[in-house]
């Protein structure tokens, strides 16, 4: 941990960064922590239990606007950083990234190219629970699936923790906040909860890192991350791997498939 602390201290002292977004000891697991002064860096930790996706803070204007930012990045945070670069939300020379090597050593990444390279070397963390869920849902008939999601989404009370925890949900005005026209009923009910989740996931088409932060944030335990996971699978099957030219949601090509339009 001393490596991390001294690295962050030197980044702050030589003014390479103004703020560092990392983790500190939390109640049951590590939680996000912010350090702007070298003398506060002692509280920082970084290990395999630091799984919360900190990329969500990179678009928080009140926190980072006009600042040079350092961030502790796990596998999915790196993926989201690349996605945010693709959407022109980050500036390369304003970002320094600290990752962990397989041996748990601190590594400093200073450019987008280095992030991409590092990500290629890393393997995605295993998600045994999620795979089990996906297998179960894939095996369901359409009506069983409908019953499953109806039951699950009947518990949603629209706290929007899924939206708040997602690094890609950075719109300053969300579709659920628009009332002329009111696309989605703002009160909780099974169908309007479905409307919300379907819209949320559609907006993630080709943009989702599959980090699972949405599902992890849900206080009532609805496995909504499976929706974005399946969306990512469908996008890959139909449109291939993402490339630098932009994601499926926000790009148009004349030869795009139109067979899904009724």
């Amino acid at each position, binding site marked *: 941990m001393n490596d991390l602390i001294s690295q962050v201290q030197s980044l702050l002292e030589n003014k390479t960064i103004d703020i560092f977004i990392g983790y500190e000891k*939390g*109640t*049951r*697991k590590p*939680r*996000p*922590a*912010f350090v702007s002064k070298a003398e506060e860096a002692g509280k920082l930790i970084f290990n395999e239990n630091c799984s*919360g996706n900190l990329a*969500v*803070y990179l678009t928080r204007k*009140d*926190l980072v606007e006009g600042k040079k930012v350092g961030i502790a990045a796990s596998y999915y945070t790196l993926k989201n950083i690349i996605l945010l670069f693709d959407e022109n939300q980050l500036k390369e020379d304003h970002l320094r990234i600290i990752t962990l090597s397989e041996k748990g050593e601190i590594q400093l990444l200073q450019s987008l190219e280095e992030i991409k390279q590092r990500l290629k070397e890393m393997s995605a963390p295993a998600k045994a629970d999620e795979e089990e869920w996906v297998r179960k849902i894939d095996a369901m008939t359409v009506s069983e699936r409908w019953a499953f999601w109806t039951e699950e989404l009947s*518990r949603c*009370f*629209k*706290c*929007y*923790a899924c*939206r*708040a*925890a997602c690094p890609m949900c950075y719109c300053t005005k969300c579709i659920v*906040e628009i009332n002329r026209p009111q696309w989605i*009923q*703002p*009160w*909780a*009910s099974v169908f309007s909860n479905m409307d919300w989740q379907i819209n949320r996931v559609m907006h993630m088409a080709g943009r989702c890192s599959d980090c699972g*932060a949405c599902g*992890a*944030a849900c*206080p*009532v*335990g609805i496995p909504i991350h499976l929706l974005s996971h399946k969306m990512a699978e469908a996008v890959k099957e139909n449109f291939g791997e993402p490339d630098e030219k932009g994601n499926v949601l926000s790009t148009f090509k004349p030869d795009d498939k139109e067979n899904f339009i009724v």
Partner: protein
Amino acid sequence: MKRKYISRHSLMNCLKKVQTDGISLYAPVTRGEQTDFRFITSVDDLSFDSVQTVRSAKAVAFPCSEKLFSYTKEKNDVQLQDYNPDVLPEVLVFGLHPCDAVGFGPLGSIFNWDTQDKPYNERRKRLTLISLACTRADEYCFCTSVGGGPGNTEGSDIQLTPIQEDGYLAEIITDKGNEWYEKYSSFFEEAAEDIRKENYLVEIPVKFNIEEVERKMTELFESDIWQLQSERCIGCGACAFVCPTCACFDIQEDAHGNTGNRIRCWDSCGFALFTLHTSGDNPRSTQSQRWRQRLMHKFSYMPERLTVVGCTGCGRCSRACPVDMNLSDNLKMFNYE
């Protein structure tokens, strides 16, 4: 206060009888890793073992969304169909912990502060609360820091304390509890006089001095403590929605041509939209201002205006928070010299 004994077996039979008498049962049910309140059809679904349900019991009196009235427009006239309390069920809320039972106090104060809120009051008067004193707690519990405790009887009509594997000490607390007891007295036995309830309760350490928190907070409106505490808050409504005393709501229109419903639904002061004006101005434009509002409302404004703290120490906000905004940790910061 009457003290009785009821065995687990009798209790289950009693609850079955309650259901056949047409009273709805709202109680904790475990599903996967979570336990939460639900209307149950079978007493076998009841869960007695959770430290805490995900949500508080407040939804039974203050539903997540509720129709206040309906209307039909006819030429130059409007016909109103007012809120109809006659269709509301009698509900036995069973197995809530003392921190939830006591929560109906602050909640009721808010709904009767100015206007007497008909939907809330009509629902509330149809509730009987049979609480379960706490023999287990976790590191998020802090009821003893806000004037409560694992065996606090305030708000409960009857309180059960598990005194052995298969039996409970039953304290009959209110008139309503007594009426309920009289109706179902055949399921109860006399309690041994030497039962000392406190021997069975879990110990919950006091984490901060609440008077000091209230006093300091009131002076710190302009302090940078709010910015410091709220940096990692991502502005969702999880804390407010699981809270037993949060009562913020929004009013929405469910319009269908010439007919429609006026809907009241949960809202949260943590949302940016909550205070956004039509002009585009937002008097609480940052998360730190919204965090300050949340805490000051509970620990300064409510004690001042309603003479009640807006927190029961249930710890749900801290358990539900995606980024571990631990409330008692933050409140401790207001205890300083």
